[in-house]
């Protein structure tokens, strides 16, 4: 077997026979499960203190229940190589600025604007802390200056760099 397929599910009232018409049908996609590896970081600052967000592993469990609908799961990367510390070095980093919590890296930044009220202009700088190329980076900050969350950076879609799908809907 293998591959992916579209499945139609007919729902009947009672025991159907050859003349029965479904009262409703629904559809699903059968897909191979896929994994999205990630590296998680918690960006903090002296004025915020040690909030290690201990419930994050549970939250990833919740996220995976949701993403299971798409046949996907988030999985912490096994890649423990040192990430980008360029920004931290600019801040005269010391060895204890990156702490491995096993479920995330806890990182002190001496620049408060990289974790509190993060602005558009600072998103890339914040995300760059401890990043590894081509690995999904999920970095937790205290707050944005505007929205509760914003998406950062994406790779090109497999089929087109930006695109659209046309669908036709008709009441049946």
């Amino acid at each position, binding site marked *: 077997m293998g591959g*992916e397929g579209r499945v139609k599910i007919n729902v009947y009232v009672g025991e159907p026979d050859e003349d029965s018409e479904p009262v*409703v049908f629904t*559809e*699903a996609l059968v*897909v191979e499960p896929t*994994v*999205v590896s*990630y590296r998680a970081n918690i960006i903090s600052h002296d004025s915020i203190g040690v909030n290690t967000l201990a*419930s*994050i592993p549970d*939250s*990833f469990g*919740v*996220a995976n229940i*949701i993403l299971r*609908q*798409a*046949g*996907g799961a988030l999985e912490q*990367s*096994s*890649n423990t190589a040192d990430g*980008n510390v360029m920004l931290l070095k600019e801040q005269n980093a010391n060895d204890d600025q990156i702490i491995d919590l096993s479920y995330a890296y806890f990182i002190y930044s001496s620049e408060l604007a990289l974790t509190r009220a*993060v602005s558009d202009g600072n*998103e*890339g700088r914040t*995300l*760059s802390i401890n*990043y590894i*190329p*081509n690995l*999904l980076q*999920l*970095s*937790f*900050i*205290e*707050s944005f200056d505007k929205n*509760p*969350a914003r*998406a*950062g*950076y*994406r*790779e*090109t*879609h*497999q089929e*087109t*760099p*930006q*695109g*659209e*799908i*046309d*669908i*036709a*809907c*008709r*009441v049946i």
Partner: protein
Amino acid sequence: MSSNLSGDSISESYKTSLNDTFDENINHTLDFEGVLSDTRYNSMFGVLLAWSKVENKYDMGQLIAHEVAHAMNALHRYGNTDDEWDGLESQQNGMLLGPAGSNLLDYGNPGDLGGTDIDLLQIRILRASPIQNDE
């Protein structure tokens, strides 16, 4: 991307959310995000998530799934935002109409997260993302 989802019979699985009016004989276009990069950082991608306004681990799980979906090229569906949207719900004056519905990509008013549903079209988008199986 060519459509392999078009057809003359579409089930309610293709409803975009509880807010969807399921229009008759209307062709919809689903838009999705393109590449977004910061040229200062080679092959960096991911999202930032703010923890201070998230009340519990369940809401944080929803937020993680929502933002990861953006990182996998999905756009907002419905809700009170002037951000870009995927084009399947009605907007007014450049704003999507709130409050958030049942879809994962709905965007809630402050303190009102979206839902958890992912429809079949969004699944196509997510599964075409290149960020899977990178190890």
